[in-house]
């Protein structure tokens, strides 16, 4: 069973249906329907994906801030959102 709480550095999570309804939430994102609506609006923004860049669609969307980020992906007809804080010793994400 998927456990979003086990993801390292996570401080909050949201689980939505494909239509944007909240299934479960936790941590800093508990009961946050506002962010759920914003994220659903984000992934349903474009009518179609530019086929020259990406054939079907994207596997993951990240919204990156200075000290935290939101990572969004779709799996098993459910939208998974995880809020992760960056570790204190570096302010920017590591080089790949």
């Amino acid at each position, binding site marked *: 069973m998927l456990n979003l709480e086990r993801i390292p550095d996570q401080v909050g999570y949201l689980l939505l249906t*494909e239509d944007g309804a909240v299934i479960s939430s936790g941590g800093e994102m508990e009961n946050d329907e506002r962010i759920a609506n914003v994220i659903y609006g*984000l992934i349903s923004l*474009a009518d179609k994906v530019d086929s020259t860049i990406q054939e079907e669609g994207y*596997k993951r969307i*990240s919204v*990156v801030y200075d000290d935290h980020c939101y990572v969004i992906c779709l*799996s098993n007809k459910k939208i998974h959102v995880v809020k992760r804080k960056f570790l204190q010793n570096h302010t920017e994400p*590591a080089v790949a």
Partner: protein
Amino acid sequence: MNRVTVVFRESFVGGEVSERTHLLVDPVSNNTNIQRVQSDDFIGCYSTSLPKKTDEQSALNRILQETATNVIDVAASDSHNLEQHEYLDRVKHYTQKLQSMSRWTPPRRPPCLLVDIPAPEKLLAAEPLTEQDLHLITTAIEEADAALVELRVEHKEDLVVPFRIP
């Protein structure tokens, strides 16, 4: 809103206010049946006379009846126990019917930028953005922004030209 304190005497029609009721009392005569009413109530008096009370009651009853017919009592209703085989039969039956319709397509789902992937944990736990990518995005946007600022019109020819018709 201007409030007018109205003093009137009861009309002859069984204590009810009518159009014949004097609005201003005769200061000279002394009448024991004087009521003080605010102008708001004065307007209200006309609409809440006795026959209206039964209308209100019937209106309430009507609303009650409408609600009772529209309410779906989930707890009290019979649970429709559908057997597994019955369910599968129905699925087959319905899909057959749908397939026989040549022009039917499944309802179009709202567009989604994301594609369905099997194992999300690995992807969610991975590093979201590399420093190089972040740097690339930031410089690209800064250059685009600078270019936009420099956008201007170059005047080459006149837009409006008079036609010299002899």
